[in-house]
């Protein structure tokens, strides 16, 4: 993809989408008493050691089904632009997977749920991954 693909600013849709994400996180807490961190739910979705893997697997399947349901409801397919440098995407995936396990969370676990709990540990994690992500984008787009 051209790296400078412009995307429109969507404050209303993004706020509403954020509220749905928050409602999901609240559902997970009210029903299961757990943090809705997608990295933790993903690693906990296999019947290895952790208990309660079954609802986590169902949650992941719900995530996977979302674009299909959105298509059925709205009749519109979802527009997205995914970077197509495949070796770089493999590196990105490895870093995201390893980093979220090592750092005990991602955008949802630390970002949404951690900040909602007013966790200082999560705040440090969020500031760290935002800073590294921002610098990475700026270096890849403007410095190289």
């Amino acid at each position, binding site marked *: 993809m051209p790296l400078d*693909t412009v995307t429109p600013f969507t404050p209303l849709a993004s706020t509403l989408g954020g509220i749905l994400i928050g409602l999901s996180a609240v559902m997970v807490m009210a029903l299961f008493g757990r943090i809705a961190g997608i990295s933790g739910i993903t690693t906990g979705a296999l019947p290895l050691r952790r208990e309660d893997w079954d609802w986590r697997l169902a949650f992941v399947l719900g*995530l996977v089904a979302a674009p299909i349901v959105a298509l059925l409801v709205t009749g519109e397919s979802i527009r997205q632009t995914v970077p197509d440098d495949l070796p770089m*995407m493999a590196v990105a*995936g490895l870093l995201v997977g390893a980093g979220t396990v090592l*750092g005990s969370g991602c955008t949802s676990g630390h970002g949404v749920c951690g900040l909602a709990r007013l966790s200082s540990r999560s705040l440090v994690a969020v500031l760290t991954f935002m800073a590294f992500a921002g610098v990475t984008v700026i270096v890849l787009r403007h410095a190289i």
Partner: protein
Amino acid sequence: MRLVLGFASGLLFGLGLILAGMSNPAKVLNFLDVFGTFDPSLAFVMGGAAVTTFIGYRLAWRRKAPFILSDFQIPTRNDVDAPLLTGAALFGIGWGIGGFCPGPAWTALALAAPGTLVFLPAMLAGMAIATILKNRKPALA
């Protein structure tokens, strides 16, 4: 019932990501590109989600236990240690390269873009490798 509700929670999360535009890596990368094609939308996603969760958690915690499982399991640690910082840094670099964090990677799967089909298995492999290393070296845990 717990499987239906687990699925419904994931579906709601995924629909939120799609409505918010977060399932589109280009939008995420533009949020991070403050010196280029900056798109501040994701700040509104995070804000809407965190405020909703902040309020909803406090309502949920009025009960002694959740509806389905027997107890609330909420992280108690407040220390900032090396694995937290290293992990967040690695995650940030990967997020900045691919524009995907774990949730949007799952919601993008069915759209089957080549980049997604490479990213998602690599992410699962990274999670598996880090889990094995974490369990092998207690110092990292």
